[in-house]
Structures are given as structure tokens and as C-alpha cells.
């Protein structure tokens, strides 16, 4: 039996296989397994329905954020249209489910693929544009998609919205927070696993090379346009997949939520979580979702405090203010995000109690 490995006290990697390993130690692997067991076998049965709702929202946001992190954090292409892609996924799933009567197990991946195609169309400018110009092109993409969702009445029913039948497997209906919890978090685990592994493949390395210096990458024989498009595609697939889950979870959807604000929220997740770090995207999604809920709670509370109500002051914009402040503070104080804080926290325990 092989030895159970602990943290080495330096970098003792000797070959590429070690370099590519996901878990540095068996200990880390055990921790993740333990965490997953808690997540799946304990969490859904002990927490309150409201907490379960929050967990589900986090799960969906995390899938989309991982996708955006592949694009921004690993490939270095900034997209301001992720919220719209999320919406495309939601609508694609809704339309496939209502018009074609597809089962959810087909509709959700199909929605992901449709979104991936749409994302690749809006990724075409990346062939010629870089940096700021590309960012603005994706901003245009956001507005155009939003417009199409609202005005293509015959397909999206415009501002009326679409109601989606509950998904079912063998006549067992998935409804309610608990059963959705398993659907969402199984998808999240699967998508995380996929993302982690793609980043240690040839494709992931090409993405990182493009991020670090696209001209040098091109010089080394990486067809950068192809890989940029692929990155847009994968990233949009994640967004679409998450959007489809969200559509099923919400039962009825309208075009309203898929605005620029949502795109900004996703970028905030990626930055606050930590760019170029897959667990970071999950941290970021957790942070932003919790912050949103907390602010909703606090502003709701404040509205009912006597003098605020009587002064006629509307406290709802406070949410927007604090949200902006959180982004600004993270960028100024810890631009590498929560993932970095987590790393520092772990490494301070690494040699415990003998850390110097």
C-alpha cells in the first residue's frame, strides 16, 4: 500500500505527472471527499428551506462563474455579456421544453450547446480585437441579446415570460428545493471536475499561453483564434447550462434578470473569488450570492426602522452602493481574491504548530 502523503515542505516535484496532479496530497483529496459527503448526505437534510434556496442559487451561480473564469481568468478575454448568455441558456431550455417537449436531461445540455454556439458567434470579434475593444464588443453583445430576447415575441413571448413544466425522471417529478439541490450540485460537481481537467489538458495550457502573451502563443504554433473561440464556446456552455438549470428552478422566466447588472455580478464573482482559479469561482459565487441576500435582508430591516420609514428615505439603493463598495475594496486590497486568502490561511496552518 502506498504511503499516505502530507504536505511537503518545499517544491519536490520531479516530473510532469506530479506537476499536473490536482491534489498535492492525499490529505487534500480526503478533505474534498469529506466535504462532498457532508454536502450531499447531510446538508440538504438539516438546513432550512430558505438556506437550501440560497445554496441552490449559489450552485447555479457557481457553474456560470466557473465558465466565466475559464474565459477571463484562464484565456484573458474579458466578456461583459455573460449575463445575456445565461439568459440565452434559460430561454433555450424553456423553449425546448415547452415547444419540443424535450426532457430536462436533454433540454439542459442542449441549451448549453445552443448558448455555446451563440457565445462563439459573439466571440468572433476576438479574432481581430484585443483588450478594451473586445470588452466593448461583448458589451454590445449583451445589449443585442437582451433586445432579441425581449423583441422576438414569437419565440420568447417577449415580456410575458415562459412557464416551464417541472422536470421528471421516470415519472418522478423533480420539484421543490431538495430535489433541485441534488440536480444542481451534481451538475456543479461534474462541471467543476470537467473544468479542472480541461485546464490541465492541451487546451487549458493553450488558453493560459494566450492569456499570458497571445503573440508568443501564436508564434509557438497555437492557432489563437480557434482557441479563443473555443474558450468563448466553453464559457458560454457553462453559462447556458447554468441558465437552463435556473429556468427549471425558477419555473417561470422573464427577460428582466438577464441584464448588464447580471454580467457585472458574474465578473465580480470571478474577481472576488480569484481569477484563474476554479475553486475561486465557487468562492466568488458564494460570496456574491450571500452578500446579495444579506443586503436584501438588511435593507428590508432598515425600511421598517421607524425613523427611516417616516423620513421617506428609500434604503434599497444601499444594496447597490455596498455591492459596488465590495468590488472596489476587493480590487484595492486583495486583487487575487478569496482563493488567495484561502491559500494564505491554509499555508499558515501548513507547518502548524511549528510555523516560524
Amino acid at each position: 500500500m502506498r504511503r499516505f502523503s502530507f504536505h511537503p515542505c518545499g517544491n519536490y516535484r520531479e516530473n510532469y505527472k506530479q506537476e499536473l496532479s490536482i491534489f498535492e496530497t492525499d490529505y487534500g483529496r480526503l478533505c474534498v471527499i469529506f466535504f462532498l459527503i457532508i454536502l450531499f448526505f447531510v446538508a440538504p437534510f438539516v438546513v432550512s428551506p430558505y438556506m437550501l434556496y440560497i445554496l441552490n442559487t449559489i450552485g447555479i451561480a457557481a457553474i456560470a462563474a466557473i465558465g466565466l473564469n475559464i474565459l477571463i481568468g484562464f484565456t484573458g478575454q474579458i466578456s461583459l455579456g455573460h449575463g445575456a448568455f445565461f439568459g440565452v441558456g434559460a430561454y433555450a431550455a424553456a423553449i425546448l421544453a415547452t415547444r419540443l417537449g424535450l426532457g430536462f436531461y436533454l433540454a439542459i445540455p442542449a441549451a448549453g450547446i445552443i448558448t455555446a454556439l451563440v457565445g462563439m458567434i459573439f466571440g468572433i470579434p476576438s479574432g481581430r480585437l484585443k483588450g478594451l475593444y473586445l470588452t466593448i464588443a461583448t458589451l454590445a453583445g449583451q445589449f443585442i441579446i437582451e433586445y432579441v430576447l425581449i423583441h422576438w415575441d414569437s419565440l420568447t413571448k417577449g415580456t410575458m415570460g415562459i412557464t416551464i413544466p417541472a422536470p421528471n425522471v421516470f415519472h418522478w417529478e423533480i420539484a421543490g428545493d431538495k430535489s433541485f439541490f441534488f440536480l444542481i450540485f451534481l451538475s456543479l460537481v461534474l462541471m467543476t471536475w470537467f473544468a479542472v481537467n480541461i485546464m490541465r489538458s492541451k487546451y487549458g495550457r493553450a488558453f493560459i499561453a494566450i492569456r499570458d502573451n497571445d503573440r508568443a502563443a501564436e508564434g509557438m504554433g497555437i492557432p489563437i483564434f480557434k482557441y479563443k473561440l473555443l474558450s468563448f464556446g466553453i464559457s458560454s456552455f457553462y453559462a447556458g447550462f447554468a441558465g437552463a438549470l435556473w429556468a427549471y428552478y425558477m419555473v417561470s422566466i422573464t427577460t428582466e434578470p438577464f441584464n448588464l447588472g447580471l454580467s457585472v455580478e458574474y465578473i465580480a464573482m470571478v474577481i472576488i473569488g480569484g481569477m484563474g482559479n476554479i475553486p475561486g469561482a465557487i468562492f466568488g459565487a458564494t460570496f456574491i450570492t450571500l452578500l446579495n441576500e444579506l443586503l436584501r435582508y438588511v435593507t428590508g430591516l432598515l425600511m421598517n426602522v421607524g425613523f427611516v420609514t417616516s423620513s421617506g428615505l428609500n434604503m434599497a439603493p444601499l444594496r447597490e452602493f455596498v455591492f459596488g463598495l465590495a468590488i472596489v475594496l476587493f480590487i484595492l486590497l486583495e486583487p487575487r481574491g478569496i482563493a488567495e486568502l484561502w491559500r494564505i490561511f491554509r499555508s499558515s496552518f501548513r507547518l502548524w504548530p511549528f510555523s516560524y
Partner: protein
Amino acid sequence: MEFFLQLLVNGVCVGLLYGISAMGFVMIFKSSSVLNFAHGELLALGAFFFLALITWAKLPIIVAFLLTLVGSFVLGFLIEKFFLRPLIGEKLIFVIMLTVGLAAMFKGLILLIWGGNLRTYPNFLPETLALKLGTIYIAPVYSATLVISVLFLVLFGLFFKKSAQGIYMRSVADNQMAALSLGVHVRRVFALSWAIAAMVAAMSGIVLGIINGVNVHDLSSIGLKVFPVVILGGLDSIGGAIIGGIIIGLLETFTGGYLSPSLTDVVPYIVLVFILLVKPYGLFGLVEIERV
């Protein structure tokens, strides 16, 4: 024909407004290569500050106007000093997201103080400024806009081409390290460009407020419309910003007049995507000189 002419005139007027709204944005981009997503909020802050000065403090228009300009100059300076300066040399996305965060902060702040309702300024422009060409009517505020934008265009052109400070600003935008090595006060250049930009933004905010009324949502969406305008004009050209503004203004009024009013908001972005695909650096932008 008359309808066409009136649309044409309206389009040019609206376009000029976009143009001068974009000028402050271009200033910042030109000197510090920062894409300012909080530009709409800067417009709104100026407009609301002016509103507060004339309605609550009951100051005379001229005094209020000057005070607004001074106030926003200081505001721009402070934004640069406290938020942008620590990020000098950081990756593009951090800078972009910082301005996005600032935008959310300012918007929240304005909503907290003034609320989201539409407010209007008292009417103070003399009717004599109005122009009447046959059946076509140009409101006084539009002719004032025309004068102001031409004035600013000339002033900025001279400033950047001829004055030493203007050339230093451009040199910083071009190559920061080299500018530093020659003793250009880079931090002062950044602070100055933000201060001037905020001032110009406040001014355009006031003009927009006179025409459309003051509303933070409208003003911040104009802040986003600046993007197609400056891309058309090429991000770093102030004259281009005016021309881009006019093109977008015409596009909007004509699609509104002949096609469908609901299309007006999205047409600029559709055009934007096509322009970027054909001419990646806009119509009047500098082609990036890249040498390896």
C-alpha cells in the same frame, strides 16, 4: 422631406450631446488608458449637484454652474487619488471592474440622496437662442450645445496638440515608463485628466439634464452609449468623439423615425459590432503600432 429634415436636425443635435458626453470619457482614456464605466454616473453627479445648488441652495445659475464645475474637478481628482492610483500598472480587468464598482457606488449614492424620480431644472435659457430655419425648429438648448461642443473641441485640440501639459498627457498615455524617465509627473497627469474629465462630464450632465430632465437611470445609460460613440470615433480622438456622436445620433433618430422606436436603443450596438469587425480601431482611431 420635411420629416426627413427635422429628423436630420434632431439627429445632429442629439449626436452633439452624445459627442460632448463622450469627451470626458475620451480624456481619461487618452491619458491613462482607463475605460471608465462610471462615466454615466459622473454625468449624473454633476447634473444632480447643479440641481441641488439651484433648487435647494437657490444660487444664481452662473454661480451654481461654476461651483458644479469646481466641485466635479475636485471629485475627479479624489477619485483618481484614492481609487485609480493604487491600480497603476495592474491588469486591465481590475481597472475596468473598479470603475464598474464605482459606478454602482455612485448610482446607489445618488438614488439614496435624490431618489429615482425624474426631476427638471427651472427653464433658464433665453428663447432668443432658438433657431428657426423655415419649418425646422432648433431649441435653444441645442444651439447652446452646438456652440459649447465646437468650443470644447477647439480648446481640447489646441490643448493636446500645442500645450506642453497636453503633450505630457499624451506621452504618459503612450509609454508610462519613458515618460517617468524624462521627469513627467505621471501621477499629476492622471489626476489632472480625471479632474478635467469629471468637469467636462458634469457640464454635459447639466446640458443633458436641461433637455431630458435629471434622472439617474437615463444618465447612466447614456454613460454606456458613450461606448459605441467613442468606438466609432476611435476611443482616443476627441474630434472623432463628436463625429461618432453625430453618427450615432442620426442612426437613432432615423431608425426611430422610419423603422421602429424600440430599435433605437440597440441600433448603436449593432453598428458597433460591425464596425469593430471591419475596422478594429474605429473609424478615426489610432492603429496600434505593434512591434515585437
